[in-house]
């Protein structure tokens, strides 16, 4: 198990170094940072001095190593657009997006998995078939439409939940969370539901298909012959054999959720990273984009490493690998 962990983490570090290399390439070679940073009245000696101060005269490898070292400490320099520290800008926005995505993911698992199990074991019954049919609608509705509908029903007509913003936020120093206040929790309901609806139906359909497959397996028949009760058969023996693809799907979808969050954040006026990156792209704000590339890759790589570890926890056959 230890060798397995070391191998997986080693892989993750290698991928991150590669990503950092590309981030460094765009940072260093897309336009001239000195041109972008100095004002128009700067003299050539000012420029040379800045160039030396930024270390741009040194060798390629030295610069790359320094970039990686800084990035590892969260130092991505100043935004070219508003001269604020990039990591500060991101730290301000990241918690909002992260909380939204995590809650949407948890919702999709908490609702999608039981629904999948029930539609599989109730196959042929009217309620299971109508759920299965209803899920097609869930898959086909675009996220912004769902968001607008949710606002219309729960916020405008019924007035139960706020339709925009993040509510009151508690600052924990390095993290700002909306989950500790009443208004913050109320505010996260609609956007996370809107973001997760697609995932819920996806997870449900996946679990249903996997369950139907697994329930035909010999070991299920043998478990029945041993006298295992149906409940344990479904939720212990069969469901555990269905979890691998669910874990894979979830990890891949977290990336998609961060991307989809852009739309949801716009609809719900959610103060997340979405707008920050839209602006960075519009103004060719390279440091922000490089930081974005590194941070999103970091999330992906971390998740995938966890997925590999989760595989090994679920399936004993993979532990030796």
């Amino acid at each position, binding site marked *: 198990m230890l060798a397995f962990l070391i191998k997986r983490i080693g892989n993750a570090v290698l991928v991150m170094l590669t990503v950092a290399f590309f981030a460094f390439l765009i940072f260093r070679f897309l336009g001239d940072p000195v041109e972008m940073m100095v004002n128009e009245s700067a003299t050539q000696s000012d420029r040379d001095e800045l160039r030396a101060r930024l270390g741009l005269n040194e060798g390629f490898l030295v610069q790359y190593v320094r970039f990686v070292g800084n990035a590892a400490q969260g130092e991505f320099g100043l935004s070219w657009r508003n001269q604020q520290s990039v990591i500060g800008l991101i730290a301000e926005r990241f918690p909002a997006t992260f909380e939204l995505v995590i809650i949407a993911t948890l919702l999709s698992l908490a609702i999608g998995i039981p629904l999948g199990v029930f539609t599989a074991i109730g196959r042929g019954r009217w309620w299971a078939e109508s759920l299965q049919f209803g899920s097609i609608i869930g898959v086909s509705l675009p996220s912004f439409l769902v968001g607008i509908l949710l606002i219309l029903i729960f916020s405008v007509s019924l007035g139960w939940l706020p339709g925009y913003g993040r509510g009151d936020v508690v600052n924990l120093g390095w993290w700002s969370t909306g989950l500790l206040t009443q208004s913050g929790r109320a505010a996260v309901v609609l956007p996370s539901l809107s973001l997760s609806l697609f995932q819920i139906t996806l997870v449900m359909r996946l679990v249903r298909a996997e369950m139907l497959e697994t329930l035909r397996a010999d070991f299920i028949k*043998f478990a029945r012959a041993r*006298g295992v009760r149906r409940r344990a058969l479904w939720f212990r023996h069969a469901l555990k*054999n269905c979890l691998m693809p669910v874990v894979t799907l979830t990890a891949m979808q977290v990336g998609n959720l961060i991307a989809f969050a852009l739309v949801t954040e716009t609809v719900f006026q959610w103060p997340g990273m979405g707008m920050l990156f839209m602006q960075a792209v519009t103004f060719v704000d390279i440091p922000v984009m490089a930081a974005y590339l590194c941070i999103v890759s970091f999330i992906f790589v971390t998740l995938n490493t966890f997925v590999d570890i989760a595989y090994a926890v679920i*399936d004993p056959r993979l532990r030796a690998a």
Partner: protein
Amino acid sequence: MNPASHSPALEVKGLSVEFPTRRGMLTALSDVSLTIARGEILGVVGESGAGKSMTGMAVLGLLEPPGRVCAGEIHIGGKRTDNLDNDQMESVRGRMVGAIFQDPLTSLNPLFSVGQQLIETIRLHSDRSRADARAHGIHLLKQVGIPGADERIDHYPHQFSGGMRQRVVIALALAGNPQLIIADEPTTALDVSIQAQITTLLRRLCREQGAGVMLVTHDMGIIAETADRVAVMYAGRIIEIGSVEDVLARPKHPYTRGLMGSIPALGARVERLTQIDGSMPRLNAIPPGCAFNPRCSAVGPRCLKARPVLVPEAQGAVACFIHHGGVA
């Protein structure tokens, strides 16, 4: 000892199983009757589709829907089980009747250790504590001949060889201490050298535990070595039943004779093995009269009209007009 312990391990009376299909009702088993005493091994032989596995599944209450028992009774250890509902049947399986299936590679859940599956089964059928159940699990593994049971109990199915896995499956079948074991082709997926070990084990456990065993197989060699009595099935019916020595040495039904003739004997030099021409009819195309009549070399006029029933004899029972009436 309670009075139920005097009743046979299994008693099946007039069992019929049917499958409703779009083109009418298919009768997969008709009028099957058999008894297995405690400590006795009954072999059930026949070609694929003769209904031998179906009989085992019906006893376990595990017929695939829409198949269902439409007539007859099943008594396990003196208790009638064919009329129980799903919940009641769950407490019969494992506790009164255990099962061993063909493929040990797929019978065990790959994601749970052998110990987890043993402890689960033991605790389903007794009120032992977890530690107690584990100790009993190790005992069972030793009983089925797994070396190093103390360590092996924490291993996963993929860490066992095929033969060892079938031993684990047998330990699981024994975990609820059932009085009847349905062994459905328990050795078919194993190497020949392992087959003998498994049948010897089955035989020993059957004697030690006083459990009846229904040994479903198509391998006459296994029957000859292992079983006490044998039932021969053809097209959903039992056509001959009797002690192994009797049926193997003096088969009475033409089909059984054909089966025996198609087995090569060691030592005897035979130019050609006899074979039974044709194949068993499909369930939707069973001919009128005796189901074996198209393939029977001794067929008479009565065989084409009426269906023979099992007639008890001094030794066993046979369903054949030719045998009973000389010229039918």
